[in-house]
């Protein structure tokens, strides 16, 4: 099986990031070349975290002293099994297990992670010299969004803890975020990000069909298609361009060929808003609305989103479904989110 492009690298600390065991000798220094690797992965938009069996205070203080603590999201420094730490980090970040690499100098730890989480790519810390040249560490492209990815996930971490601490109903919490969704046609500047979204997004993706830069550029100019991108921001900052819609616009029927959203906006209701927007457009045009859907083991949420927006199955062929919407019903935009449409 071809290894997927990696989104996250989880590092061990002792004898991996630094040379030695910190609880035995506090004067450890960074392994040769490690800082360059960490910085380069970061600029490629690959996220990084820590799974270390260690004293949290001592290890974290050392990371700060070395000036690299800021690079790591949701670090797990504790005495639990590494597989449980890896699992926890991946759940917090909310990405697929098959896009994760785990680097550790201890064969026992690599085997333990591998046996519990077979999809994770486990790498010996002794082999990191050529790491940056490996295929799976090379993203297809590096966009503005990928360069800022770590900062966006850091804001997500802040949102998440705010959400956990919030005791009122969820709608109220969402309202407190003061979200603003901007819906606009895909411009040339958006094409790389649009392609990246079709490649990276699996959970909130209606078909999983990927489109290349060239294809998207053609669709953008095609009179029979509408290509829309959505951007979200709130009081914690920008989420970036997080949603993409491809419409095939016929005389009497419009078809949603693709609807996807970054999983970072899961639980924000963006999918329902985009669908409500499309229904509104179709209604104004007086066309019938359908939607392609390809069922996978990951995109149940999208299925539910369509169904609850009033779509009905009109064709069902294996895992391929065509939904239809009679436009008799549409939800208003939610009150907790400002929606701005740019033409």
């Amino acid at each position, binding site marked *: 099986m071809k290894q997927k492009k990696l989104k996250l690298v989880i590092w061990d600390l002792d004898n991996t990031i630094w040379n030695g065991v910190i609880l035995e000798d506090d004067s450890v220094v960074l392994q040769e070349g490690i800082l360059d690797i960490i910085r380069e992965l970061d600029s490629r938009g690959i996220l990084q975290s820590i799974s270390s069996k260690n004293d949290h205070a001592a290890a974290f203080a050392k990371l700060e002293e070395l000036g690299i603590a800021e690079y790591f999201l949701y670090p797990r420094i504790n005495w639990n099994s590494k597989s449980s730490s890896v699992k926890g980090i991946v759940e917090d970040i909310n990405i697929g297990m098959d896009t994760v690499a785990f680097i550790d100098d201890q064969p026992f730890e690599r085997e333990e992670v591998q046996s519990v989480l077979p999809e994770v790519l486990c790498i010996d810390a002794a082999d990191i010299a050529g790491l940056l040249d490996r295929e799976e560490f090379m993203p297809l492209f590096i966009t503005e969004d990928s360069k800022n990815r770590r900062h966006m996930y850091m804001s997500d971490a802040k949102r998440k803890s705010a959400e956990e601490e919030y005791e009122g*109903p*969820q*709608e109220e919490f969402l309202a407190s975020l003061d979200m603003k969704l901007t819906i606009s046609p895909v411009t040339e500047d958006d094409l790389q990000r649009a392609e990246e979204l079709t490649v990276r997004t699996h959970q909130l993706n209606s078909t999983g069909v990927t489109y290349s830069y060239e294809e998207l550029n053609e669709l953008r100019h095609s009179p029979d298609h509408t290509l829309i991108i959505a951007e979200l921001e709130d009081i914690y900052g920008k989420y970036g361009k997080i949603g993409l819609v491809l419409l095939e616009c016929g005389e009497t029927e419009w078809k949603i060929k693709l609807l996807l959203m970054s999983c970072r906006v899961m*639980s*924000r*209701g963006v*999918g*329902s*808003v985009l669908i409500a927007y499309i229904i509104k457009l179709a209604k104004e045009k007086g066309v019938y609305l359908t939607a392609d859907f390809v*069922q996978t083991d990951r995109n*149940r*949420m999208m*299925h*539910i*989103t369509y*169904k*609850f*927006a*009033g779509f*009905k*199955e009109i064709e069902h062929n294996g895992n391929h479904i065509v939904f239809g919407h009679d436009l008799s*019903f549409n*939800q*208003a*935009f*939610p*009150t907790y989110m400002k929606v701005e449409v740019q033409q």
Partner: protein
Amino acid sequence: MEENKVKIRKFLSRFFKKHELGDDEDIFALGFVNSLFAMQLIMFLEKEFELAVDPQDMDFANFKTINLLASFVEKKTVKV
């Protein structure tokens, strides 16, 4: 059935705070029902009543009112 309705009403009341839901009242007509609510509703049904909501069950009509939800639960949990 009545017992299930109480559980369903209790769950829904978290979302429709200021409103006393009638058994036949259309919850979708009451305001924005987002995918977030949908997912939570489905997770609630699956966990609380130990049933599996299949894709073909995800019909609007099954979830519209407390009564419809209760009969859906009953249909899904009938022991063969």
